[in-house]
């Protein structure tokens, strides 16, 4: 079975007061976080941590080599769910906001090397715009053994039609859907334009000179531990391509 971690930030008053962001508070952060947590625990998976608001720190995801503590937190579980405000830089790096500068107000994806200790397989970020659809390779560096990054290529809505997204993703995972389908189906209400995207890396046989063997990709094959197949990790030296799958309306 899987070990999982959850971090959710609903209030951003400290960040606003410090002048580092104009971001507003959210409303349904913990409906989604609790829903994901509840569904996974109901199926026998183990929660390693659940940090809320200013107990969420950027060092939790920052790589140890870069002064962070990921090997204790994010890179020490199989699947990690985070909700906060997000965006990306011009060079494609994802960034996310915290409400407590431990040690920084924001995390940037060039500071992540996930799966490096061969632990984290899947990361799910309910945050706007952490993937630049015109430069998905901008987050390639985060795949140090991690299989799939689930994020958004534009807005993710906070509202009454998306308050059950955590439960929906959790249900999909434990009912046996692939991780990619669990995310895209689970966060889509097919009404408001959520913009889910799932990103993974593939080997040279998957790239196949540009004639992609999609059936070989994590997007097609990976399930949550205990609910179907999980492919082997792919070390950076074996990674020949980056693949992504997204919904648009």
């Amino acid at each position, binding site marked *: 079975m899987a070990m999982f971690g959850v971090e959710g930030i*609903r209030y*951003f*008053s400290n960040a*606003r007061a410090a002048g*580092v*962001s*104009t971001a*507003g*508070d*959210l*409303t*349904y952060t913990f409906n989604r*976080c*609790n829903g994901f947590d*509840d569904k996974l625990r109901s199926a026998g998976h183990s929660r390693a*941590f*659940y*940090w*809320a608001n200013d*107990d969420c*720190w950027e*060092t939790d995801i920052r790589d140890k080599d870069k002064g962070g*503590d990921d090997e204790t937190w994010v890179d020490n579980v199989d699947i990690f769910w985070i909700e906060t405000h997000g*965006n990306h830089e011009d060079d494609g790096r994802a960034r996310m906001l915290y409400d407590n500068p431990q040690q920084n107000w924001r995390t940037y994806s060039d500071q992540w090397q996930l799966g490096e200790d061969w632990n984290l397989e899947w990361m799910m970020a309910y945050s706007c715009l952490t993937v630049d659809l015109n430069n*998905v390779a901008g987050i390639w560096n985060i795949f140090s053994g991690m299989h799939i990054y689930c994020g958004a290529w534009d*807005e*993710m*809505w*906070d*509202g*009454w039609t*998306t*308050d*059950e997204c955590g439960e929906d993703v959790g*249900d999909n995972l434990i*009912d*046996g859907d*692939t991780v990619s389908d669990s995310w*895209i189906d689970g966060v889509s*209400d*097919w*009404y408001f334009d959520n913009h889910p995207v799932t990103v993974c890396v*593939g080997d040279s046989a998957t*790239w196949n000179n*540009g*004639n*992609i063997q*999609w*059936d070989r*990709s994590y*997007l*097609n094959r990976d399930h949550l531990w205990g609910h179907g197949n999980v492919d082997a990790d792919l070390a950076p030296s074996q990674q020949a391509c*980056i*693949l*992504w*799958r*997204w*919904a*648009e*309306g």
Partner: protein
Amino acid sequence: MDNKLFLDNMVGTYNTAPSHAEIYSVRQLSVDELNAKMKRLLRYTSDVCKTSTDRADWSVQQDRTLVRLPKGGRAIIHHASGAMKITTGLQPMELMFEEKDYCKDDHIKMTESVFKKLNLDEFTGQKESLQFEKLWQIKAAAVNREQKFAAIRLCRVIGAFRHFAGNLPVLGPASVAIKLASNGSLDSVQTLIRETSGEAIEWAPIISAEEAADKVLLQLSSLMGKSSVDFSELITKQSMHFGYISLAKRKSQRILAPHYVAAISLRGKDAQAYQFVVPATEKLYESTCNTGSHAFTNQVARNRFTAQNNCK
């Protein structure tokens, strides 16, 4: 942008609201009745997929019924709302569309055709209908180390349909979503239709769009808090719609009452996108829970001592 401009912009985007609207009670179905509905939808699905679903494993769980189907398919009924979902067991990258088949108009027709074959109109009540609303697509792409891109592939198309009670839409998650693979192969169908009990129980006066926009502004202001920048300068998109609302699938609902629904996007260094719901009647018929939950965690708060240790 000042508040007046915000309100003018908001009111300018809404679809016309009537002076009065019907209030409906929502039909409440027992688990047995819901199971019977699912059996009917499974029968139609079997016809569309040309596979039998007779051999199915039904299990009633805490708040839903789960049906395991042949070939990795499954069906789910959410007891609180009667929402149903059937998946046929296709893998995400199986049966992708060929490039010659990338035509949106054809895909809309394809979803409408399957909609008819599934007899989904049978799942609404009197004076109700389902209408096509929007086509969604799931695509895939790849790039290698040398920045060589592979051709974008179309994996799935999704036809979203909207439930109408009388002349008003029931806003919320898609009332019906039909997901298709190439050649119109059914990947999944899901429904969230709050069937009314028929006759209106009340005829309620509707508040003005200006008044509703004022309430939206109040909700937005409370979220934005104090900041160095006026949030109205950060708004990039705003819209407002009018109709009944359907809560999400795990929530029961007894009444269909009209509401204004607003969507507002803001950009600063951090992007934000909010939905707001405002009752369109003076009398409150249905709670929409605008407060959200607290974190369900008993983890002890972290302190700076721990932080210093962690960050050595």
